[in-house]
């Protein structure tokens, strides 16, 4: 059973102009996204820059105003209702940011950074709070002598781990991770991804994992949604997407992933160019007259692909 449902989420930004500065057009950053989240699963959101994946994440947690659509959390409608401080939703949904450095107040010490969510959502005594902070540091594998340090004294990987510690402080049910490893080196990336998996199995967390790195997404996610211009192009389980991609945009994205086998690189280049030629030739079939993606249609229990009604009859 899913504990959280998002139905037909829209985030539009108005473009103002003209003599009276009236709204003349809109940017459809997120345009009708529907998702469900189950406990303990990882959901991947993939797309190129500008496809609206970060906006989706921010809209879910309430950092972007939702234009229309609903978010239900354990049966409760929580759309645009984030003003109440003691709402369970605020506490249970947390976020890890891409740039861990700018997501921490440079003038606060680690102890205060980690205590902030505790002070907001949990009524702990000073001793309990300190004990909890030490636990958190232990979870992310850092020693207690960092408590009085400032964010700038840490390396990128350590800062990202502090970001994770802060996100798990109040035992959330779900964490939205917006490109958590894209600024990190390979070996540090491996560390952070391992941590995220450990914490998940320990606390039964769900992740919404936003990334443009298809290799990392393949490693982390159970369900994957590919996004293009604010809409889902294809959603499905990991195997649906990687073994049986249906939409031409998904195929193009997958063919562009660099592989670490130099022997097959000429072949891959050929496939990639074929897909690209195909994409240029066939793309009008996959997008409507405004260049948008068609609504999703199910082709199996888990696998949904965007296609037009005509094509649907063909299958």
């Amino acid at each position, binding site marked *: 059973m899913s504990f959280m449902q998002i139905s037909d989420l829209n985030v539009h930004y108005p473009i103002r102009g003209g003599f009276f500065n009236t709204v003349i057009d809109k940017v459809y950053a997120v345009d009708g996204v529907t998702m469900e989240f189950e406990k303990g699963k990882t959901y991947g959101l993939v797309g190129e820059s500008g496809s609206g994946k970060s906006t989706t994440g921010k809209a879910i947690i309430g950092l972007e105003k939702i234009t229309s659509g609903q978010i239900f959390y354990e049966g409760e409608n929580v759309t645009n209702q984030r003003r109440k401080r003691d709402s369970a939703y605020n506490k249970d949904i947390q976020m890890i940011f891409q740039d861990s450095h700018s997501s921490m107040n440079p003038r606060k010490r680690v102890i205060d950074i980690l205590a902030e969510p505790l002070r907001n959502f949990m009524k702990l005594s000073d001793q309990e709070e300190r004990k909890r902070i030490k636990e958190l540091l232990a979870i992310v594998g850092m020693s207690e002598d960092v408590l009085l340090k400032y964010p700038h004294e840490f390396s990128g990987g350590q800062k990202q781990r502090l970001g994770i510690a802060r996100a798990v402080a109040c035992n959330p049910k779900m964490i939205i991770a917006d490109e958590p490893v894209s600024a990190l080196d*390979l*070996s540090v990336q491996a560390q952070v991804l391992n941590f995220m*998996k450990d914490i998940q199995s320990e606390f039964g967390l769900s992740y919404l994992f936003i990334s443009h790195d298809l290799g990392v997404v393949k*490693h982390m996610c159970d369900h994957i949604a590919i996004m293009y211009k604010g809409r889902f192009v294809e959603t499905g389980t990991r195997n649906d997407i990687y073994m049986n991609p249906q939409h031409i945009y998904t195929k193009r994205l997958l063919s562009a992933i660099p592989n670490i086998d*130099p022997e097959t690189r000429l072949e891959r280049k050929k496939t990639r160019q074929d897909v690209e030629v195909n994409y240029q030739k066939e793309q009008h079939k996959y997008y409507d007259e405004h260049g948008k993606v068609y609504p999703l249609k199910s082709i199996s229990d888990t696998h949904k692909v965007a296609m037009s009604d005509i094509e649907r009859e063909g299958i």
Partner: protein
Amino acid sequence: MNTANDLLTIRNLTTSFRIKETYHAAVEDVSLSLKKNEVLAIVGESGCGKSTLATSIVGLYNTVNTKVTGEIFYNNQNLTQLNDEQFNSLRGNHIGFIFQDPLSALNPLMRIGEQIAEGLMYHTKLSKQQRQERVLELLNQVGIANPERVARQFPHQLSGGMRQRVVIAIALSCKPSILIADEPTTALDVTIQAQILDLLKVLQSETETGIILITHDLGVVAEIADRVAVMYAGEVVEEAPVQELFTNAKHPYTRSLLNSIPQTHSENERLEVIQGMVPSLMNLPREGCRFSARIPWVDASAHERKPQLHEIAPGHFVRCTCWKHFHLEGEEGGGTK
């Protein structure tokens, strides 16, 4: 002196930065060579000195706080001995440089066309009309549709991929014989990255340029490189042809790095993590094997006291002897932590 078919020869290059009155070497005793029509990839994590190596070649360092020793030969000229004026006639003309962040490499107040023509103005005797033609030709060459319009636009009007193409066009404007690309695709999406890599390859086959590609992405290396040098803590720890490196890597660092790529693992498996961190410049262990601190389970006697590069197969060099005793976790022969 350059040997017969080397375009660029680097010998014993050491670049040190001054921090509080002492010099700390960020690149130490690096010797590499680049041939015509070759892509040499330099791989490593951040802080291993790969970008410092690149800026040392073209002299883009701060002359007050930086000390460069060793030799870099190009056309029988030692680049480390050049003054600014001599360097200016080389940079852009003979050696092109592609920067990582295309937005900060471009001047926000200049039109694209003018920026590309700038190098041509200094290095060639083309007339204004000819320069304009060359600009359009270059934009066409890097795959920008509608070059006339783009030439009149400003950098902020272009997308990330387009900007990177413009930066490549600038680097190629004077038909350089060496192209240094410092993380040319790191800021880009995978589809654009694939296009840019293909583009570099096509341009190379047309002009026989030697390319030095600096990257931390081993996927990119496997896509495009001919030869690879792996750097760790300022030293080259392994150098090999690309096939050899991916199938038969020897140095513990290279092997751990290859092992931490999510791709090489089946799903849900734990990723390999290298213990510890890259040491900072001031805390570099200057004696003995620099990687030894991160593989503590390998016996100290396995390391050389002064690790040297050994040629173990034609063209395949490995530093130190510890690779003979190194095993990844779960492999035959131990590797217990």
